[in-house]
């Protein structure tokens, strides 16, 4: 076993790094920059039942140490993804985490059925946290009962392990995590973006055509760290951590907080090579603190310092 390998339900990864959903398309663009088989896995862009065109432009805005996006779940629909996008990823022989979204329970269930049946998909990531479409699942992601219900239903039809992607736009994320754990989730992904807004001060008009968007990038990393730290103490599910990670040091910090694997989103836009560069650097950081296996990093903070967060 290599020292970087990690094992999560459905995801046997040679290292803990995978690109985050929506920040890597379906992989083929970045395949022009480097060999994708270097990655621990890939999260593909959200799939909905029918193709969606998404929101009007502008869809992105820069903010201090971060960015807002309101793409609006643009994708060619689950059939198109299975037929035209997934096969291109087969040669890389790495686990594929398929992000799924929908407006209704029925849509989530149908998309899950179809995509989880693909032999190329290793696990599904239930996106109940997209803040950018009126009916994008956030209504499931902010009420713990509906989140649990949906998780149970999706789980009952999925042929692969189910990770539930949590929204940070809630007052108590631990409650959400516990609810989906009870409902049978195999793992958690956290965090999705925080709802934000940017205005042109001269005209007063919002920069994004959608007015609001999801904040990502280094600015949200402290929020992600805190939430992962808090949730990992209350649930026993493995966590795919994400939110502002852009360096190997960030990965070590996030695993320390409780993540078992780490997804990299916005940082891919800043540096297309960020994922392989992080992977290459991790062994050096492990050496520096005398840790042999990277999987030992998961939850290290609490083990070392015994400082539980008071539950709110």
């Amino acid at each position, binding site marked *: 076993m290599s020292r970087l390998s990690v094992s999560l339900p459905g995801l046997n990864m040679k290292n803990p790094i995978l690109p985050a959903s929506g920040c890597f398309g379906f992989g083929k663009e970045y395949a022009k920059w480097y060999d994708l088989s270097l990655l621990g896995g890939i999260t593909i862009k959200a799939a909905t039942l029918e193709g969606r065109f*998404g929101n009007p432009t*502008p869809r992105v805005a820069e903010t201090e140490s971060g960015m807002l996006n309101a793409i609006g779940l643009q994708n060619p629909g689950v059939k198109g993804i299975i037929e035209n996008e997934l096969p291109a990823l087969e040669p890389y022989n790495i686990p594929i985490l398929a992000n799924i979204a929908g407006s209704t329970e029925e849509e989530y269930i149908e998309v899950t059925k179809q995509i989880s049946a693909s032999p190329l998909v290793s696990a599904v990531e239930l996106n109940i946290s997209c803040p950018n479409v009126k009916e994008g699942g956030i209504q499931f992601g902010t009420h713990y009962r509906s989140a649990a219900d949906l998780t149970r239903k999706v789980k009952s039809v999925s042929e692969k392990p189910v990770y539930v992607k949590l929204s940070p736009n809630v007052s108590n994320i631990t409650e959400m995590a516990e609810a989906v754990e009870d409902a049978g989730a195999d793992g958690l992904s956290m965090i999705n973006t925080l709802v934000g807004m940017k205005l042109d001060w001269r005209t007063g008009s919002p920069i994004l055509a959608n007015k609001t968007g999801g904040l990502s990038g280094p600015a949200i990393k402290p929020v992600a760290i805190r939430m992962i730290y808090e949730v990992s103490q209350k649930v026993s599910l493995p966590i795919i951590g994400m939110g502002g990670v852009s360096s190997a040091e960030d990965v070590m910090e996030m695993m320390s907080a409780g993540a078992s694997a780490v997804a990299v989103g916005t940082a891919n836009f*800043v540096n297309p090579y960020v994922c392989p560069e992080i992977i290459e650097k991790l062994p050096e950081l492990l050496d520096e603190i005398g840790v042999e296996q990277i999987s030992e990093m998961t939850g290290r903070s609490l083990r070392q310092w015994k400082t539980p967060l008071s539950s709110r």
Partner: protein
Amino acid sequence: MKKHLLSITSNTEIARNIFEMKLTGPGTATMTVPGQFLHVSVGKHTSKLLRRPLSICDVDLEKEEVTLLYRAQGEGTKQLSQKQTGEFVDVLGPLGNGFSVESIDEGKSALLIGGGIGVPPLYYLGKKLREKGMKVTFILGYQSLEDSFYIEKFQEIGETIVTTVDGTLGIKGFVTDAMDQLISEEPVIYSVGPAVMLKAVEQKAAGLNGFISLEERMGCGIGACFACVCPTETRQSGYVKICSDGPVFKMGEVVL
């Protein structure tokens, strides 16, 4: 497609808030197609996160030098304008599909129409079309005399007509006001500028063969994030990505 560290050989203000930046490095060898762009990192990655798309304005392959012209307007381009000779700039590129120079009949004349900060890529394009032996005419539109740049350099390539909104230089008005007498020869149209201008150019040049280059706010710049889409009726998907399918499209191909 590569990431390059290029070193600044000059970075000077050539008109009000307009900077000419020359960069050198081996990476420039691949920058041979006009209309492509570089995705330029402007500052410390952690505060100004996103790269700025800037068109390739000129390339000197022998000197391994690429020229960018940019307007220092927002925070990022202002930071860029403060960089000194000898500093390095991190760029991705060349990105996107540029103007196809090969596919055009040599006998044709070309009318290149640029508005404001859409002017820069027309310089490299004009040079390439001239090398092919085409007759090249430019219409360059600026706000005002103070905002105008590169006019003498364009004149070296071909006839250059200037319009300014306030009439302080050339014809008072918009680029479309100078098009009428020139389109009777049925030139191939190449146009870069704000969407409203491109729309007006397309209307004036209806029926002619031509190309336009679009702008949109970008994330990745390489086709992965779906930030920069533009609707189209000519493709089954219903959209194009400006960064990777464009920024150059055939006139009429996208819905402006």
